[in-house]
């Protein structure tokens, strides 16, 4: 080896400098929703050429005719490198007609392969062994769909196999996972929480500033929470399914404005006791905020609705937990006359200041 290569000195000078990051990768989609498994395979043409020497005239420009001329060879290579076993038996994959697509911006062979077997009753495994012999850094991204479940797997020389076991439906697991996410989101979303609590602050009072009866406080709270739930559920659904699409920044600013309006109303009373109406109107904006995290949900409409329902239920449960804790506290505090005179306006002022800060922060 030479004493000092150009590349080595660059490596020494900038040892961590970012490289091009587009190494070799293939993409696979395994669909287990039909009567038999269907596999969509997308492999970069450059990688296939490395293995099969597709560029027969050697001009380094691969033509469609050159690929078709070696279609049988390509199919054989794919069949050898992709082994599907269903319920303990090999399942032959029959290739369809080739097309051309792109993987990570590179031209790729696009081919569907239909399994000649029924969908699995118990187990399925897929072994992937394409390109690894030439490039151990090659990876395949496999997306498997079964019912409402979508899973991704990275296949590598160290982990070349997908193993899939049927059994207890994971649809429930997915639902619960999204539900947990919804709860998590409401608890970490300080702006959503602050809006709700700001609306609840006066819910324990009657117009004169005295403490409301327990049933009245509960009725006020139920009205506010129901209005908020209805409206944010509506926009959450529409936005998550891609019907509404507003810039995230605009939504975040509007959410901060909603907190400010609720706080100002508590102090000035300019909108009277229309807290439920406020919850209904601004809940629409908060729903868009919730949806930001769900945008781009994969899967068919059914699985999307299932995930959405789980997420929304999580938001409601999380919200309910907050109300259950906050309401008795507020109701207890409202016993004192200082609640209406000092605590409510001071708390609302503090909330207002925080919301102004958010507005500035999200606008600048």
């Amino acid at each position, binding site marked *: 080896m030479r004493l000092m290569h150009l590349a080595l000195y660059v490596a020494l000078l900038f040892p961590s*400098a970012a490289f091009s990051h587009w190494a070799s990768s293939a993409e696979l989609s395994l669909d287990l929703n039909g009567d038999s498994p269907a596999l969509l395979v997308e492999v970069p043409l*450059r990688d296939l050429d490395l293995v099969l020497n597709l560029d027969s005239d050697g001009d380094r420009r691969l033509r469609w005719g050159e690929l078709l001329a070696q279609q049988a060879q390509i199919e054989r290579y794919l069949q050898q490198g992709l082994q599907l076993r269903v319920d303990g038996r090999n399942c032959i994959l029959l290739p369809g007609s080739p097309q051309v697509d792109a993987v990570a911006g590179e031209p790729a062979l696009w081919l569907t392969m239909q399994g000649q077997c029924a969908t699995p009753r118990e187990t399925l495994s897929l072994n992937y062994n394409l390109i690894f012999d030439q490039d151990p850094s090659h990876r395949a991204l496999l997306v498997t769909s079964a019912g409402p479940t979508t899973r991704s797997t990275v296949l590598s020389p160290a982990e070349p196999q997908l193993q899939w076991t049927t059994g207890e439906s994971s649809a429930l697991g997915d639902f619960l996972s999204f539900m947990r996410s919804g709860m998590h989101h409401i608890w970490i979303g300080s702006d959503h929480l602050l809006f709700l609590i700001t609306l609840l602050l006066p819910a324990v009072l009657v117009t004169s500033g005295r403490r409301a009866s327990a049933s009245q406080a509960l009725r006020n709270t139920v009205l506010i929470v129901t209005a908020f739930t209805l409206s944010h559920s509506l926009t959450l659904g529409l936005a998550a399914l891609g019907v509404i699409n507003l810039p995230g920044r605009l939504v975040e600013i509007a959410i901060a404005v909603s907190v400010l309006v609720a706080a100002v109303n508590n102090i000035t009373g300019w909108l009277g006791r229309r807290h439920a109406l406020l919850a209904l109107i601004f809940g629409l904006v908060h729903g868009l905020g919730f949806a930001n995290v769900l945008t781009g949900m994969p899967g068919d409409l059914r699985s999307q609705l299932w995930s959405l329902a789980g997420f929304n239920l999580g938001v409601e449960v999380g919200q309910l937990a907050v109300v259950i804790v906050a309401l008795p506290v507020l109701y207890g505090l409202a016993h004192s006359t200082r609640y209406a005179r000092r605590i409510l306006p001071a708390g609302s002022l503090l909330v207002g200041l925080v919301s102004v800060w958010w507005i500035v922060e999200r606008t600048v």
Partner: protein
Amino acid sequence: MSSHAPVRPLRGGVFIPALLAVLLSNTASAAYVPESADTVIAELPPLRERASQITAGTSPTEQLNAANEQIELAQRTGDLRHLGYAEKTLQSLDDRSADAWVLRARIAQYRHRFEEAYQNLDRALSLQPGHRNAVLQRAALLRTNGKLAAAQEACYQLPVADPARSLCEWPIRGLRGELEPAMQALRNLNIRDGSLRLWRDSELAEMHERAGNATLARTLWASVLAGDPQHHFARRHLADNLLRDQRPQAVLQLIPQGSPHPGLEIARLQALRALGEGDWRPQAEALVRRLERSQFLYGERHERELARIQLTLLDNPARATALAAENWLRQREPEDIRLLYRAALMAHQPEASRDVGRFVEAHAYEDALLLSGELNT
């Protein structure tokens, strides 16, 4: 149905759909059947590049040369596949070859797998104590990780007469409160070897940036680039220098569209933004998706690039701060220092850059760019 190991289900509850969307963003099918047999469906790399992989030599020396050639191709073209080909070639080499371990370390280093790189270099040095390239590379890695005293110490394993020892030692001393003496020492080095001279000039250019001599630095970067047009890192630093000098048009001339190097691509998009031209924002978002996809597929870390995109293109200093802080755990080069400092400043999170302050103080680190308020790191 439920999946089992080795399936890697996406983790993180609510992030499942978001990440899947990122991964699947490339799979939205636009498959087509070409019009005719003559339709060109792919431009392939030169046969020479492909052949050098397939015909990896039979003798250990030939195999080492083939692997080294692939690494250099990766460096020149920015095409990471060549690192895979080099890795394949090295698989067949004897575990007792120190040179092979150094090359494995370089591959690991390029993939930002620093621990693996250290282990490979330790193997090389245990097989051949004082192995020149292993020593140099180990010092460079320690320097990247901010272990400056250990890095400087590592340089002393080289013979005093070796000019690479000074090139290894002085730039590190330049990071440890001796910027001016280090520049002087490098300027006084009498170097005949062209590669070493380029190395020296690159180090000097970087030091001039920190000393506040932007014009001198620019001249040096340009001269390095003239000596080695494939020097992508000099190109990026020159682009950053030009951006700081409010010359985005010159940056666009310097960096062609579609550069495979994310650092260059980011600088190009910054220039487009400065000029108010082109669809720089969707391009920046696409770059983020590709980096995240690469991170997911290959387990590589790209927080530095992602932080820079968030800070300078997507106007999200809070996200940039989180990414830069994550990057800071592994990389502490001057641009990492500036990146975290500025991101934290813009995000109004001074506590996030506390470590940077401690590092700067502990090493008496000098950097005019750190306090200049410039956004380009």
